[in-house]
Each structure stands twice: as structure tokens, then as C-alpha cells.
């Protein structure tokens, strides 16, 4: 494992790559099996899980996007949710949580930021976007332009920092508790620590990141 672009490969990046490879294999297998499935068949096993998952996601994002927008932004949002759900719970298998590296958390928010700007250009138009910077009352523009510019850049910053902060707090607290306890007590404490910080907070943060992306992108597409 030695491909150094800049600096050594961090633990979090390794676990992120593990998650990506795992998800890639599972999704390719599911895709092949979906392709073979006839419309009259009932899905079973892994396929059933995926069908139920995608239906639930579709029901969540349908009220926010209409018609063509759903086809453009749906796949990205589903992919982010799927990746974060697995990435935040991967520390149950002994790997470090990928989002506890600030770079990986920032990558997620930067991707959402790129999608936001794409939504602005594609569905809103640059002219309307520039007009929005002035605010409702045009002579207030010396105050409104700085506020709107800060708002533009605070969205990706807060989204990345929220993910990173939640994951690193779980990592720090569980590391501190494990450092104090011996291994017998550590097993009993680990049950509660991992349930709270990995499963509960991890899934909630994945869902929150997904929901905020949905809301922000749907707001960016509105005229």
C-alpha cells in the first residue's frame, strides 16, 4: 500500500477506500441482478433490500424536486447517503471512521457545493443568481452583497465541519474511555460507546447531511 501523492496514506483514507470498493462490488452485483430481473418477478434477498432502500429515498426527495430535476440530482444524493451510511458505521469493523479526517468530510461538502453551483447555472440562470445577490430592495446592496457572499461560502464549510466534528467527537470520547479502562471493562463500555457514537450518531449525521443537501440543492434550483 504505497502510492504517495502527498504524504502518507492515513488510516481514514484506507477505510474510505475499503468502503468504496465494498459498495462498488455490491452495487455492480445488484445492477447485474436487476438487469436480469423480469418485471413480473418479485425481488428477493439483497435485491429486496435495495429496492426498499431506493423507494424510501425516492419518497424523501420527491417533494423537493420536480420532473427532470429528480433525474439530475437523485443519483448524486442517493450515492452520498449510501456512502455516508456505510462510512459512518464502518468503525464497528475495527476501521477508523473516514469522516474523522477533515479532508474526507470536506470532500463530501465540496461535492455538494459543486452540485449547488451546477443547479444554480442549469436551472436558475446566472443572471437571476446575480440579481439575488442584491436582495429584495436594490438600494440596500452595500449591506446585502457581503452577507450573501458569506452565506454562499458558509454552507459547504458548516456542512463539512458538522460531519467532521460529530465523527471526531465520537472518536475522541471512545479513545479516552478505552485509554482509562482495562480490556474487561472496555468490552462492556464498548457496547454503549459504539451503539451511541457509531450507529446512532453516524446514521443521524448521514441522514442530516443528505437532508441538508436535498434542501440546499432544491432551494438553489428554485426561481
Amino acid at each position, binding site marked *: 500500500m504505497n502510492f504517495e501523492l502527498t504524504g502518507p496514506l492515513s488510516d481514514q483514507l484506507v477505510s474510505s477506500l475499503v468502503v468504496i470498493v465494498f459498495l462498488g462490488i455490491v452495487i455492480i452485483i445488484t445492477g447485474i441482478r436487476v438487469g436480469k430481473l423480469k418485471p413480473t418477478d418479485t425481488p428477493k434477498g439483497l435485491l429486496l433490500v435495495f429496492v426498499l432502500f431506493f423507494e424510501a429515498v425516492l419518497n424523501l426527495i420527491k417533494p423537493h424536486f420536480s420532473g427532470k430535476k429528480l433525474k439530475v440530482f437523485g443519483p448524486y444524493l442517493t450515492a452520498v447517503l449510501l456512502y455516508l451510511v456505510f462510512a459512518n458505521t464502518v468503525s464497528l469493523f475495527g476501521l477508523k471512521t473516514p469522516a474523522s479526517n477533515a479532508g474526507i468530510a470536506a470532500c463530501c461538502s465540496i461535492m455538494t457545493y459543486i452540485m449547488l453551483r451546477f443547479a444554480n447555472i442549469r436551472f436558475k440562470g446566472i443572471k437571476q443568481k446575480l440579481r439575488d445577490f442584491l436582495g429584495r430592495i436594490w438600494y440596500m446592496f452595500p449591506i446585502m452583497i457581503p452577507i450573501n457572499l458569506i452565506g454562499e461560502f458558509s454552507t459547504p464549510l*458548516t456542512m463539512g*465541519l*458538522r460531519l*467532521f*466534528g*460529530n465523527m*471526531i*467527537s465520537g472518536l*475522541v470520547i471512545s479513545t479516552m474511555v478505552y485509554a482509562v479502562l482495562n480490556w474487561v471493562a472496555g468490552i462492556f463500555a464498548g457496547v454503549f460507546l459504539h451503539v451511541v457514537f457509531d450507529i446512532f450518531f453516524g446514521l*443521524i*449525521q448521514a*441522514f*442530516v447531511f443528505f*437532508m*441538508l443537501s436535498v*434542501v440546499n440543492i432544491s432551494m438553489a434550483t428554485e426561481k
Partner: protein
Amino acid sequence: MLHNVFAAITRFATEYNQFFTDGLKYVGAGIAVLTGIGPGIGQGFAAGKAAEAIGRQPEAQGKIITTTLVTAALAETTGLYGLLVALLLIFG
């Protein structure tokens, strides 16, 4: 009077060493984590209002819980900034 002030300043300057700065780092980290008060109030408020809303309209439970989770996580952000500052002070 003035003599005492000068004496205090010189004593501070002599005691201002590595241990002093290290100790103050931990004090600063402790103060930074006090931001946890804000999210506590905010999340408690959101959860209370959600409970009220579910009591008034039990059929909209799913939507209310989704909105509450998202807004609670939003309110958490300021506390996380405090935590990050504390971590930077200790480890950075």
C-alpha cells in the same frame, strides 16, 4: 502602590514559562467547551416543540421527527465549533 504593581509584573514575567502556557491551554480548552450550553438549550427547545406538535397532530409524526432531527443537528453546529477549538488547543 506602583511598586507593588511593578513587583507583580516582574513576578509574572519570571513565572511565565512553558508550564504556565501549557496549563493555560487546558484552561482555554475548558472555556471553549462551554459553548455546549447553546446547543443544549437549542436542542431542548426543538425537542420540546416537536413533542408539542406530535401531541397536537399525531398523524404527522414521521415528518415532525425528520424535521426535528435535521434542526437538532443544525443547532449542534455551534457546540461542535467549540469542541474543535478545544481539540486544536490541546493537540494542535
